[in-house]
């Protein structure tokens, strides 16, 4: 297969993407006009994007189309007009613009907050309380072919010894969170154990995340390396030079200004 020529729109895209990437990275040096430009462009595009998306997916698909279809098919049915309810609630939120009647928006807030609180209760109890208890409460010993045994293998998460460690960890960290109990005497020992568990876990989670964060940077750099190629018109080196030069010029200008004042 012959080497494909990259379409102009892709090359243009590569330049735009590379430029914006470098502008944002320049923030690692310090706040500067290029970062401000990148930041405001980014925020602007994201707002515009949300507006378009909300228009088509919410107003069009969830509100207008069902209403239109419903009115055409069952104009008399009450269910047809159901999307009007959230539309009305949405309008109530907009009363915020008019201080006199802005209290009406509370009705919508009550609706949203009530729904959220209600939905949360049984689901939280199910997956964050009962499920967690269920997974913690495990027999410490197993009955095998050769009788009763307690697993001492640290490498197997289900072994008896790990079940005990897990139990100690959960109980001591939970104890640390007690608000109305003084952390003195045996309580202090338990709470201290809890703190150590917390710190080890936080350290481990931190160390574990390093890898996936580095993967992101590697991915980003790989794109920049790709765009450095001749087929993209050497976008990366050219734009890198432009960025560095403009930063230097800006730095000089601000220094001169500061010196002049």
């Amino acid at each position, binding site marked *: 297969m012959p080497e494909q020529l990259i379409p102009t729109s892709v090359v243009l895209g590569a330049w735009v993407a590379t430029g914006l990437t470098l502008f944002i990275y320049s923030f690692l040096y310090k706040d500067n006009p290029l970062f401000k430009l990148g930041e405001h462009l980014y925020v602007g595009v994201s707002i515009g994007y949300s507006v378009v998306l909300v228009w088509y997916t919410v107003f069009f698909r969830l509100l207008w189309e069902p209403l239109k279809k419903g009115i055409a098919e069952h104009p008399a049915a009450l269910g047809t007009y159901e999307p009007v309810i959230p539309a009305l609630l949405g309008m109530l939120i907009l009363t915020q613009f008019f201080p006199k009647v802005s209290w009406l928006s509370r009705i919508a807030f009550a609706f949203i907050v009530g729904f959220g609180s209600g939905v949360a209760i049984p689901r939280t109890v199910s997956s964050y309380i009962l499920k967690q208890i269920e997974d913690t409460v495990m027999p410490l010993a197993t009955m095998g072919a050769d*009788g009763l045994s307690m697993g001492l293998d640290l490498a197997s998460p289900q072994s008896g010894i790990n079940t005990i460690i897990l139990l100690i960890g*959960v109980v001591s960290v939970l104890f640390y969170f007690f608000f*109305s109990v003084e952390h003195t005497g045996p309580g202090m020992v338990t709470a201290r154990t809890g703190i150590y568990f917390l710190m080890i876990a936080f350290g481990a989670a931190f160390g574990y995340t390093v890898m996936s964060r580095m993967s992101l940077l590697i991915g980003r750099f790989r794109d920049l390396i790709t765009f450095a190629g001749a087929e993209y018109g050497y976008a990366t080196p050219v734009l890198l030079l432009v960025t560095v030069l403009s930063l230097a010029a800006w730095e000089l200008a601000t220094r001169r200004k500061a010196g002049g004042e």
Partner: protein
Amino acid sequence: MIFAPLVFFLLLIGGPAFAGPPASPDGFRVFDTPNDAGKSLSLVWKASPSDSKDRTVQVWAAEFPPAVFKKVAEFPSNTRYVRIGDFPWWAQPAGKGDHYVKLPSSQAFPIEDGKPYTVKLLTHEGTQDVWSEAAEGVSAPNYFNLAQVNNLVFVLAFTGVLLGSIAAARRNPHIYLRRIAGLDAVEEAIGRSTEMGRPILYLTGSGGMSDVSTIAATVILGQVAKKVAHYETTLKVPHRDPIVMAVCQEIVKEAYVEAGRPDAFKEDTNFFITDDQFSYTAAVDGIMLREKPAANFFMGSYFAESLLLTETGAGTGAIQIAGTDSDHQLPFFVTTCDYTLIGEELYAASAYLSREPVLVGTLRGQDFSKAFIMGVMVIGTALATAGVMLQTDAFNYFLDLFRDFK
């Protein structure tokens, strides 16, 4: 003890040879699957000692009155038993050790609610086939999931404990609360901002108004704003969700009124940036770099943006106080902020800051419930271990109460 596996082994290889021709399954029943949304039937029959992996069971079903039967499932006859942990003891569809098969509606054999179906089993071994009696069943959706009744009881009991401790706190408001350093620092952070003449930045997290952690963050915002109102300090609250923004607007306004400083309230305290995660982060980082707030508050739920925000804030030398229930982001808050409210402490913060009996009582109620859960875990582990040692399932009557069933 050595003989046990040997006997088992003999049974395994010898089983089919001694068992003779397959017998038709005993006690075969078909009924509506309990505790479900309908469109499914349940089949139950007694286990037989001659069940083996070489003997297969086929499920054949037809609409009633039966005309053409269709094979809908096939499996070895020594599988699909009711096991401990599948169902709670108060909602068992069949006895322990019975065979249980759930027959959901499928493309191959759709099941509709309210329609009768006939099902029979074909036991097949070698060249021999034996049909069971046919049984009829009608599927229907149910109005209550009995298997989750323990969840409901838990919620009701927790409500009771909560209301009880709130009432108790009203009668006796002097409850000991241990110190939380992050909350002692709130006042200090506000004071420092005032001294330095720099603004205070407060973020409510990434959640919408139906997220409980966002609600907690807005409640704390009210109390922070009340303290801020006493000083001549600017409060800045950039938002990702317009509804949260509107709610916070009301909360902050009210806080200034309660503090007796309605004149000091500025309409532009709360403002919206964008609903997109990383452009919001870029903009907030920009605010931190340009306006150099002396105190940054991060409350509510967060995702990957957490470190992008806190590390920038640390670079500007602000006092940073975080509070989040997002356990995956806690390591980053703990390492980059001066104070972090870990998990539950986010929900306790408003009680600490306000000292209102309702809130303090809630903490007491939560402590009781936590103690109860700790007890359940310790006792449960002991009972589960005893169950293994004594070879009994009697303790499951207790353990099942704290399992999550779907």
